């Protein structure tokens, strides 16, 4: 009997079906991956198994879900508590918000043991330690009293997994378990999950949008789009001989291609020497001031028409460096925009130069002001830097730049909430390039987007670079994306440059251990001894 059997499942929100006709089964010891882009219904399907949907307006018009033969659709809350507590464990995407910030690690896990295993205090403590050792949390004994904010992202995810395992489930549901993590940590968590599944003979339902993760982990794959499973089968078969158009589209969509070819010796658009950023962490009345050196003595040169890629894990100072270069953050060191030294300039003197350096942010939902129309958003810069333009001229300029980024000119009368993530990112790019900048800083411009949209945005960026001779400073933790666009590469760790050079050379023959570990984690999803930080 399969551990989980889903048949003809449908989910409706306020009467509107968002998932329909979903059927799949998972055997003991098997990993099945639900793959799809945002909005495809994969998380909704997973939450249905746990019956954790908001049933005030969600319902299951049809279908059955059986866990070990027990029907969960329509089960009472008491029955579900038993299923959730003893049969199924779940790991969520965001380990920071999924853990209770006010409880220690011991209490988070112990709670489950009291409730479902009826263990006493000292037994529960022993079992908690066992679980933490099982998920390979370093220094588990000392960390029993730690709070979630004292752990790193990877450590928190390990605690989440330990919580899910506390009830010795037969089925582990992992909803995007590594999406919020750095690549090296991702590799470690994936191999941990793999090892646990084998050792405990669990069934695993893996929900992800990342095809690399699927390829590495899953025995069988269900490809979902628009609330339906369009293809399912053995992982190797689906990857090698995809039958459905959407699967092919998804496989082809991974960012690829090469950077725009460039001439050597182009002039520097922006250069910084010995740039440092130090954050004040505050001081008490009698304490010495504490600091965080977010960027330490970094030298950077971005040349016309070229892309400088900056890679590194979260907290390595990539974004801080970019904001400091644009003088959006206070820093020390020499910054030159073209020939002009801009470090010492006053805010007022700097303002007229802002049109030459622009920035595009990661989150297309947070980077557009929600209550301004697209036209107002884009023309705000023109009003400042091209005062001679009449309103009609500005309208034409906005229309042109929208066409440039692949949106209809009539999009300008609409508001950000009417657009999808990829389209919003295009609006953000339009806002940057309408000023004819020499340099555009792209801070993780594709990280919040679905894979197929990522590829389109990368194509667009390359095209714009070719046509306008733009210089990019491209920040990303996603090495696949960087490889598709960067000419030169800087690898950062803890605010300092670990390695830099021509992109192709760094990718093909990394010199430092850290870079090697980063590449292995990113491209093979393997952990290498040496470079990676502890998780």
């Amino acid at each position, binding site marked *: 009997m399969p551990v989980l059997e889903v048949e003809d499942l449908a989910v409706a929100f306020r009467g509107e079906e968002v998932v329909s006709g979903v059927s799949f089964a998972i055997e003991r010891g098997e990993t099945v991956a639900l793959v799809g882009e945002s909005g495809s219904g994969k998380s909704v399907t997973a939450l249905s198994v746990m019956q954790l949907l908001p049933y005030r307006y969600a319902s299951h018009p049809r279908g059955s879900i059986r866990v070990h033969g027990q029907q969960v659709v329509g089960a009472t809350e008491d029955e579900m508590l038993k299923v959730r507590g003893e049969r199924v464990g779940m790991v969520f995407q965001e380990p920071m918000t999924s853990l209770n910030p006010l409880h220690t690690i011991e209490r988070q896990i112990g709670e489950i043991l009291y409730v479902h295993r009826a263990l006493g205090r000292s037994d529960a403590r022993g079992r908690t330690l066992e679980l933490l050792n099982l998920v390979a949390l370093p220094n588990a004994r000392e960390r029993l009293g730690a709070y979630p904010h004292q752990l790193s992202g990877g450590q928190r995810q390990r605690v989440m997994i330990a919580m899910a395992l506390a009830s010795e489930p037969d089925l582990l549901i992992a909803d995007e378990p590594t999406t919020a993590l750095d690549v090296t940590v991702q590799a470690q968590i994936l191999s941990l999950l793999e090892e646990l599944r084998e050792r405990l003979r669990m069934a695993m339902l893996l929900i992800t949008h990342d095809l690399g993760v699927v390829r590495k982990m899953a025995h069988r794959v269900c490809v979902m789009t628009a609330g339906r499973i369009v293809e399912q089968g053995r992982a190797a078969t689906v990857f090698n001989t995809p039958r459905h158009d959407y699967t092919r589209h998804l496989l082809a969509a991974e960012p690829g291609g090469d950077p725009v070819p460039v001439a050597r010796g182009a002039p520097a658009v922006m250069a910084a020497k010995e740039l440092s950023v130090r954050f004040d962490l505050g001081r008490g009345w009698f304490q010495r001031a504490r600091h965080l050196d977010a960027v330490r003595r970094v030298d950077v040169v971005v040349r016309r028409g070229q892309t400088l890629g900056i890679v590194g894990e979260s907290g390595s100072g990539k974004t801080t460096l970019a904001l400091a270069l644009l003088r959006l953050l206070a820093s020390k060191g020499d910054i030159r925009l073209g020939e002009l030294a801009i470090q010492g300039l006053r805010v007022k003197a700097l303002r007229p130069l802002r*049109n030459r350096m622009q920035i595009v942010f990661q989150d297309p939902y947070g980077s557009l*002001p929600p*209550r301004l129309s697209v036209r107002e958003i884009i023309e705000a810069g023109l009003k400042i830097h091209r005062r001679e333009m009449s309103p009609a001229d500005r309208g034409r300029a906005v229309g042109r730049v929208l066409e440039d980024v692949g949106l209809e000119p009539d999009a300008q009368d609409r508001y950000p909430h009417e657009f999808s993530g990829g389209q919003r990112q295009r609006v953000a790019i339009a806002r940057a390039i309408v000023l004819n900048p020499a340099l555009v800083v792209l801070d993780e411009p594709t990280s919040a987007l679905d894979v197929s949209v990522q590829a389109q945005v990368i194509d667009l960026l390359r095209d714009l670079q070719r046509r306008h001779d733009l210089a990019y400073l491209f920040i990303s933790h996603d090495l696949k994306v960087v490889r598709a666009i960067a000419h030169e590469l800087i690898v950062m760790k803890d605010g300092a440059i670990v390695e830099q050079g021509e992109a192709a050379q760094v990718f093909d023959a990394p010199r430092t251990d850290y870079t090697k570990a980063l590449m292995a984690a990113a491209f093979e999803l393997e952990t290498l001894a040496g470079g990676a930080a502890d998780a």
Partner: protein
Amino acid sequence: MTAGTLPMGAPREADPGAGRSWLSPLTRRRWANFRANRRAWTSLWTVAAMVVVSLFAEVVANDKPILLGFDGELYWPTLFSYPETTFGGVFETEAAYSSDAVRELIDADGWMIWPLIPFSHDTIDRYTGGVAPEAPSARHWLGTDDVARDVAARIIYGFRLSVLFGLALTFLSSIIGIAVGATQGYFGGLIDLVGQRVVEIWAGLPVLFVIIILTSLFEPNPVALLALLLLFNWMALVAVVRAEFLRTRNFDYVTAARAIGENNFTIMSRYVLPNAMVATLTYLPFLLNGAITTLTSLDFLGFGLPAGYPSLGELLAQGKANMHAPWLGLAGFFTLAVMLTLLVFVGEGVRDAFDPRRAAV
């Protein structure tokens, strides 16, 4: 939303029902929520109707006729002033239309249309038979007060004054509060630190005593009283707006606005303020209530508007002084109770409509 499955060239609606609208789906959901709240929706319209009627108090309750026909010509005594001589009288001052002499003059060769209540708030009815304060009768629906003025007329004018005063006080203190809160929240750091301390000290002043002392030094008129109350009333919104600005100033779109070279004022007013307006809007009905209550209590204590102004607080004070005339106190009480309750219902509706924990109905 099925992002990424379609070609990017053609814009597609993220939400098919969105349409082209300034209102975000969220705002429209809030509006729908508010309308679905029958109590709040009815209260809003009732208050609005009462305010509109009271705005035309001069044609509802007045001691001059609305329209007058005399000698084949039309006169508008509520709008223009006509000397008694116009109608063949002896005095060159404005005609006293309710006096018997003028009535006889006009009735001889014309007609008059009187308002519903033929008394203004300051009309002393010399022709009534009884002793002031006089109980409700056909002539005076809610009776008269202790100087023989019509209570119904005084309530209509008093309601208008209270609401207008409350609106003005709310509006002005919101502007100041938003400006101060925005400045503190946006710049943060030392400005915020100093600002917060100043607000705290200012809020610690014994407001009532200061007002009593100041009003005893000079005879207050509505504008002076407004300024005086404004001095202590502007802190209400500072905390809310400040918190909202502290949160929003770290959003990417604020950094993006700085990156295109927007100045601080533009960023604050165009990019950040619209977010703070949500929280502000939720507070406004309650602020309005507070402002009305403040004016009423000052009037009740005798430190508010000088004698002669139609004031609900003064009516209550008369009720207290004339316990044998319960219609005074009751009329004042019910007017205030209805007005404040309706405003609280509206406020609750607004608050619930903005509450994210309440799902759409």
